[in-house]
């Protein structure tokens, strides 16, 4: 199904199942420990041996020799695989760094070897017996020191310019010109990257934890240099990803190599928690400069956003200025994205790449502008709303209710109680402040396919390689099928995460919910057509409801219509130019109250509230969870997450969950989430948009702004730890 004109009335509008806060259909499995993740497939891959990876202990250089003798002789060891005996290994186009080092080492903890043994304990111990002789090379690890050598990336849109920024900024009545930094961050999903791999002849089966099944097949094909048809990937449950599992990582490659080395017997392998930090990807640190010029009434006349980040040679930038191109009006504008070469582990997408860190700077700068203007920060944003792409005014937004979000959010939060003068509100030892920020995240759509079938009992089964990484895909896909086919949820079986199913959008960039359900919509429409045709019904007036197909006064049960042979259909949604002809994005407004301990400088979030406009909300319960989860990650970004680079050795020092802090229960207060009533008929036939990343965008800046309001300290270097406020508080 092509989607190239805006949706009109369609069966999703009935909203009998869609739009309802239905409990997750995989909930009973997840809460009883009976959902089996990639390392837990003894049902399908019994007698698995255990793999354990040795990572490089240097950041850059060469492996001069590897002595595997002691490791191979260790009890229980079945094989040791290194670049010397792995055979020819390719680098997938999606990967910046190779999954197996040798002889060159590209980053610290890059996989150097896998030890395969009968037990986990044996594999782990034997790995320590490997002796690797490295020739260390000088590397570049310091973004600040490399800022001057950063260059314009070859792809993407590194430079944008409209009007005369420099001239307008020079003339602006009120100006902000500030530098902000954001640190490297680590995804740290709870399930480390894990894989069980097994070979049957030249066919490879991978049970792996992955967000994008079709990419996993492709990456593995390009890495092992085997045909895609020889690879079967399954990932029905994924213990979180946040971008870290968009591509296969060394767990999958090394498990496959390990299994091949022992004749195809299954090998299971999970990265250790420290390896998650330095072996895989991270969100790159940024240095950002924001310049905003405004008239006295608050109208922005000039806005510029520049960003510097680093990555390995051949890598890409963190596109921090994304949101600034579309969020506020202003006739004179520019953005610039620059990329330095750093020899740290691969930088790549983490939840809301671009916007998540870009808004940490932009929305803090807007707060500074509001203060200079002596204007309410909400009002400043309302004054600068735009209903068209500011770079191309002929291009309208498909839907844009930022103003509604700002007003509704402010009302629900009680923003009018805020004292704009910092340091005025106390609660015992706590200095209390309020802050807000806009939320913005692009709406991306991706081709997505599905197969839907009805059996003779009237059960409807949908199969797609879409993944559920905690997002609720199982449930919203089930709801889509139930709505389209007119059956209750308990008549729907949802099968996900298997490369033998039609390729889907996968989970990433908050495109998965809308795109994958749109693909399921397409398949259901094809199935409805086929049912109607089989029954001789006129497909224009056919109605699917209550487990029946109805046309005029005729009514046939689905099971009868399916017959003994059953009926099935496959289709995909292919998106046309609507994302180009219309600017498509999701919007929101975050409101936060914080307390800053007037003695210690400790910062704690006291309450959070937000209103969001993201098209149709397919399941308000799971959508709300996406938003509160993203807000929680935003608390981490604002207050604690900081992957510390040791620039002498070139690695992230605090590489475990004791030292790289992510928020704990005690850090998270009451969270209020409100969804604006919205349909976006230009986004998809589901009229939905992404929601999985929006909640992260802007929330950290709202916290920083609240900290300023609480104690009068502007911290422009995230995260806002107490050492940056102590001694400066009013």
């Amino acid at each position, binding site marked *: 199904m092509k989607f190239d004109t805006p949706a009109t009335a369609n069966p999703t509008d009935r909203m009998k199942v869609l739009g309802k806060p239905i409990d997750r259909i995989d909930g009973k499995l997840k809460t009883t420990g009976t959902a089996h993740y990639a390392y837990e497939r003894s049902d399908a891959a019994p007698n698995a041996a255990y793999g354990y990876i040795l990572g490089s*202990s240097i950041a850059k250089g060469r492996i001069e020799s590897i002595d595997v003798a002691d490791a191979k002789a260790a*009890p229980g060891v079945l094989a040791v695989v290194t670049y010397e005996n792995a055979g020819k290994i390719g680098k997938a186009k999606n990967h910046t760094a190779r999954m197996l080092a040798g002889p060159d080492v590209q980053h610290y903890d890059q996989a150097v070897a896998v030890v395969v043994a009968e037990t986990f*304990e044996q594999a*782990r*111990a034997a790995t*320590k017996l490997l002796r690797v002789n490295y020739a260390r090379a000088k590397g570049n690890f310091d973004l600040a020191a490399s800022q001057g050598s950063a260059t314009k990336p070859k792809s993407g849109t590194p430079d944008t310019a409209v009007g005369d920024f420099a001239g307008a900024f020079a003339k602006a009545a009120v100006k902000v010109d500030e530098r902000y930094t954001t640190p490297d961050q680590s995804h740290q999903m709870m399930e480390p990257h894990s894989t069980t791999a097994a070979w049957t002849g030249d066919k490879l089966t991978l049970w792996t934890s992955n967000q994008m099944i079709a990419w996993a097949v492709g990456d593995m094909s390009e890495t092992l240099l085997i045909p895609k048809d020889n690879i079967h990937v399954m990932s029905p449950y994924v213990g979180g990803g946040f971008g870290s599992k968009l591509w296969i990582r060394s767990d999958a490659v090394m498990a496959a190599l390990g299994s091949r080395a022992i004749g195809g017997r299954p090998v299971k392998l999970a990265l250790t928690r420290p390896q998650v930090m330095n072996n895989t990807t991270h969100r790159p640190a940024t240095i950002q400069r924001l310049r905003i010029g405004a008239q006295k009434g608050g109208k922005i006349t000039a806005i510029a956003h520049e960003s510097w980040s680093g990555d390995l040679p051949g890598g890409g930038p963190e596109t921090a200025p994304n949101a600034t191109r579309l969020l506020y009006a202003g006739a004179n504008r520019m953005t610039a994205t620059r990329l330095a070469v750093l020899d740290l582990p691969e930088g790549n997408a983490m939840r809301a790449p671009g916007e998540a860190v870009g808004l940490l700077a932009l929305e803090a700068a807007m707060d500074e502008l509001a203060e200079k203007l002596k204007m309410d920060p909400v009002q400043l944003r309302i004054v600068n709303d735009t209903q068209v792409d500011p770079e191309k005014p002929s291009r309208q937004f498909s839907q844009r209710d930022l103003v509604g979000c700002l007003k509704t959010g402010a009302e629900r939060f009680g923003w009018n109680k805020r004292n704009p003068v910092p340091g005025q509100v106390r609660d015992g*030892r706590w200095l209390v402040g309020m802050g807000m920020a806009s939320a913005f995240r692009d709406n991306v759509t991706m081709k997505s396919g599905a197969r839907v079938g009805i059996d003779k009992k009237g059960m409807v089964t949908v199969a797609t390689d879409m993944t559920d990484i905690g997002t609720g895909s199982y449930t919203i896909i089930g709801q889509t099928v139930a709505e389209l086919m007119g059956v209750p949820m308990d008549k729907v079986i949802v099968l996900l995460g298997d490369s033998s199913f039609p390729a889907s959008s996968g989970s990433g960039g908050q495109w998965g919910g809308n795109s994958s359900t749109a693909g399921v919509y397409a398949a259901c429409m094809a199935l409805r057509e086929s049912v109607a045709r089989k029954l001789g019904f006129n497909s224009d007036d056919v109605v699917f409801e209550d487990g029946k197909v109805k046309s005029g006064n005729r009514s046939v049960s689905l099971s009868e219509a399916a017959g003994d042979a059953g009926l099935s259909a496959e289709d995909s949604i292919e998106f046309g130019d609507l994302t180009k002809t219309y600017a498509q994005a999701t919007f929101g407004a975050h409101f936060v109250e914080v307390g800053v*301990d007037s*003695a*210690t*400088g*400790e910062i*704690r979030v006291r309450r959070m509230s937000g209103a969001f406009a993201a098209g149709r909300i397919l399941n308000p319960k799971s959508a709300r969870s996406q938003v509160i989860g993203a807000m929680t990650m935003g608390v981490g970004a604002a*207050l*604690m997450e900081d992957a*510390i680079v*040791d620039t*002498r*050795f070139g690695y992230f*020092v*605090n*590489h*475990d969950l*004791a*030292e790289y*802090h992510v*928020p*704990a*229960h*005690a*850090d998270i207060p009451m969270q209020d989430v409100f969804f604006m009533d919205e349909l976006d008929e230009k986004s998809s036939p589901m009229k939905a948009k992404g929601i999985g990343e929006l909640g992260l965008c802007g929330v950290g800046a709202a916290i920083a702004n609240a900290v300023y309001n609480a104690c009068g300290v502007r911290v422009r270097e995230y995260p806002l*730890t*107490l*050492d940056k406020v*102590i*001694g400066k508080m009013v």
Partner: protein
Amino acid sequence: MKAFTYERATSAKEAASAAARMPGAKFIAGGTNLLDLMKLQIETPQHLIDVNGLGLDKIAPTADGGLRVGALVRNTDLAADARVRKDYGVLSRALVSGASGQLRNKATTAGNLLQRTRCPYFYDTTKPCNKRQPGSGCAAIGGFNRNLAIMGTSEACIATHPSDMAVAMRVLDATVETVNAAGATRAIPIADFHRLPGATPNIETSLAPGELITAVTLPKPIGGTHIYQKVRDRASYAFALISVAAVIQPGGRGRLAFGGLAHKPWRVEAAEAQMPNGAKATAAAVLAGARTTSQNAFKLPLVERTIGAVFEDAKA
């Protein structure tokens, strides 16, 4: 983790003599720190002596009105003991500010005293660390040392002791009781139990090889207001940047001990005379001789401000 043999000891003396007999032996109680380190091969015992069956899990009154806390009393049980909550509130508070409910259910009184530093370079076997590998150098000096020590450091080591409980034990003037393989017992004042790093940061306590902690005794209650103020980046489940254990008597005199400042719980008895003169004077005396890095100098004002907050709390 290197392979090891394992035995369950049934008496303290037997455990100590097994430790003396078996090369590379270590005691295991809660295991929450030892196993963590063994997985990384920072600790590589060849033999583990499980001391959980020794019956050292009682809290009993002492003749002079104090409490004798068995070495194997779990952190949860020590924190929850009615006598501790009533008379040694600073200890109960310190215990529940540490780790998590799960860890406190396992971690023991003796094990907590023997916790090893959380310095990230100690934890990474690919990096130099004089504590882990004497003579290899200290990667923390000149590296990521925001969380590390400012008092009593040496050119060899700037690690901190991570325990909260030990800070409270220090302010309460607890005594560590031990037994060795010969069956000889001794009582070590907590002040002398932990060492400063000096040139041998690998030697952390005054315990002799194979010497087993059997109990920690608390002197009779001293009254006063008990406060444990822990300052950390995350609201819970995080090690202290600094912490203050305080027992403050009417009139503002009292005792103070500090976590997060040094290789051992930090207490400067002489500085306590300054308490009635306020936080600034007290902090200046506590922090005399501080050696900071560019990353951890914030601990100086933090200590002063936190002392001030503790004094205010005590008045309230």
